[in-house]
């Protein structure tokens, strides 16, 4: 599904990713944890195709294709989805029209006609139910004035609409209340399948109680410095990151 090999990336002359390796197979859920500023969101942005980041080395294969050759739109259409740590507000563009453009973009890529109005609305209803997205939010401008939790639900709603092959969730749990965390996690779990993979970025073990990962990785200073099973998250929760820093001599 995804094979990252010695990926190096920088922004504004500062190198952030310093030779990162990660392989995700179909159906797997990987969690990435790591201290603030270690490069987790940078990795997510680089994978999603944000052009401000300079790729300085390495390769990324996605579904057999060279991901780095594709622009952001093409990556999304190829089945990559990023749930943003900070979802963007777009005043004046309604959530529903935004999603119709997204769905039709994907359909165009698949050689399909634009979706019919009714089919689209049915789909919206079904997917909104999955994360219990308030109906009123659909007609409001994209994320404008949404609460922190509403924005995160909206991200997962969009993911459900687009049915990606690989979904990267960047701190989707932050800002969610206890019930919302459960609802959103159940929405994600409902989408787990042998073909679909997830890369879940989080600071808290709590989320991983709901979305149980197959692998947990620790990202530190632009590299994956440790990988393990779900018990690694528990260990981190208990001990913090210092012991790893000491072990790797950073």
């Amino acid at each position: 599904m995804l094979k990252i090999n010695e990926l190096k990336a920088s922004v504004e002359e500062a190198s952030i990713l310093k030779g990162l390796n990660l392989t995700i197979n179909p159906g797997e859920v990987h969690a990435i944890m790591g201290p603030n500023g270690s490069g987790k969101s940078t990795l997510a942005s680089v994978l999603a195709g944000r052009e401000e980041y300079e790729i300085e080395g390495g390769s990324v294969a996605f579904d057999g294709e060279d991901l780095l050759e594709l622009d952001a739109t093409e990556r999304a259409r190829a089945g990559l989805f990023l749930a943003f740590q900070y979802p963007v507000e777009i005043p004046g563009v309604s959530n529903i029209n935004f999603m119709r453009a997204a769905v039709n973009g994907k359909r165009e890529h698949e050689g399909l006609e634009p979706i019919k109005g009714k089919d689209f609305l049915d789909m919206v209803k079904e997917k909104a139910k999955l994360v219990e997205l308030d109906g009123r939010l659909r007609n409001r401008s994209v994320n404008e004035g949404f609460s922190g939790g509403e924005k995160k639900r909206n991200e997962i709603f969009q993911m459900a609409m687009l049915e990606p092959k690989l979904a990267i969730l960047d701190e989707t749990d932050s800002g969610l209340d206890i019930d919302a965390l459960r609802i959103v996690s159940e929405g994600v779990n409902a989408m787990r399948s042998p073909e679909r993979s997830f890369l879940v970025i989080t600071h808290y073990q709590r989320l991983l109680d709901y979305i149980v990962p197959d692998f947990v990785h620790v990202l530190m200073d632009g590299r994956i410095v440790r990988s393990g099973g779900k018990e690694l998250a528990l260990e981190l929760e208990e001990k913090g990151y210092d012991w790893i820093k000491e072990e790797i001599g950073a």
Partner: protein
Amino acid sequence: MTDSAKPQLMDRPKTEAKHAASETSGAAFLAALDGTRSAATSAHDEALDRLPVPHRRVERWKYTPVAAWWKDVLSTEVHTVQAAGCAANPVPGLDAYRLVFVNGIFDALASDLPVHSGVVCMPLSQKGDAAVQPVDAFSPETTDWFAGVNGKYGQEGLYLRVAKGVTLDRPILVHHHTTGSGVFNALRHDIALEAHAQVTLVHWSTAASSADGSVNILTRAAVADGARLHIDKVQDEEGQVRHIAFEDIRQSSDSHAEVHTVTVRGQWVRNDLAFRINGSGAHAELNGAFLPGEGEFVDNHTTVDHRVAHCTSSENYKGILYGKSTGVFNGKVFVRPDAQQTNAYQQNANILASDKASINAKPELEIYADDVKCSHGCTVGQFDSDALFYARSRGVGLEAAKAMLVHAFIGDVLKGIKVAEVRLEVEHRLAEKHGWEVWSDYPNDDA
């Protein structure tokens, strides 16, 4: 004119010096005009003599190059839509009365004048110069050289009188089309609404892609107590056309006047709007959207003159500048000493969609009353790169994502267009010009 309405320093040109080279160009231009039209009136000669031909050191013309105006002026034989090969009605599905002018001449066959009690509507040439509203010290004709040219040579246009309490049942479409080479077209619209009368006008200008020439349109409107005037104004001129337009709107108590200007296409466009609010309780609204493309120039100069107490005005201009285009926005708001409890709002936001585009934007508020609410904002920016990336990360193409942001940006201006068919056609033409296939899929208010 009452005493307090006497011109004050604030809205009078200081000392506008003449500039020798410009005067020579202007004089040659006028001589050429004299050679092509037979019955120019001389009533405005004196004003024209006094006014400087615009040049860069006249404040209102600082960012507006006029050199392109000094081209040959020829006469043209094409005066009907049939001869021009253009549609009488440029707006599909629009149910409106219609006055069509081709190269400044009324095309009776293509027109459909209202027959409505309390409404006098006819081409100005049939009414005669004596019937039009008198010019005063604030009139564009006495303050701006190009308007003076219109005063002297503009003999055709819309003559409209709406009697007290009468509401015209359909909008009036005033369609002007330019075709041919070296043309100069002047139109003068003279509008007066009596108390509580209501009318909606659609001013639509087109030009053939082979057209080369200039268009000078002056609209004067008196809006009496409680009357409502709504103008949707669309400029969609292909070819090499220079278009200058003046709107001189005088409002009495409790009247309501709106002008919505969308510049879809135009090589060189200058809009000069002035609202003089002379009666309390009146509301003025002026909105505009301009989206010049490669090589185009669009200039919006506006004046809102609050002369009495308890009035409101709202202004919203949005510009998106593509390619190597240039824009100008100048928004004057005067609040005179007597105009207490004025509420005046002005907003001008611009997006430079290319690094070769430029805009000169300047709000000018002169407030001489103390108990007023005036707010203004002026911004120049680029497309929001976070929003673009966000949309693209959902599989929306770059151009479609930009079109979406454009629509969101100018959506509030387009919403103000009163006639739905006009709004739709404006959207279509913008989409066509900029190649936004998906545009019509994203109406702001459908859901």
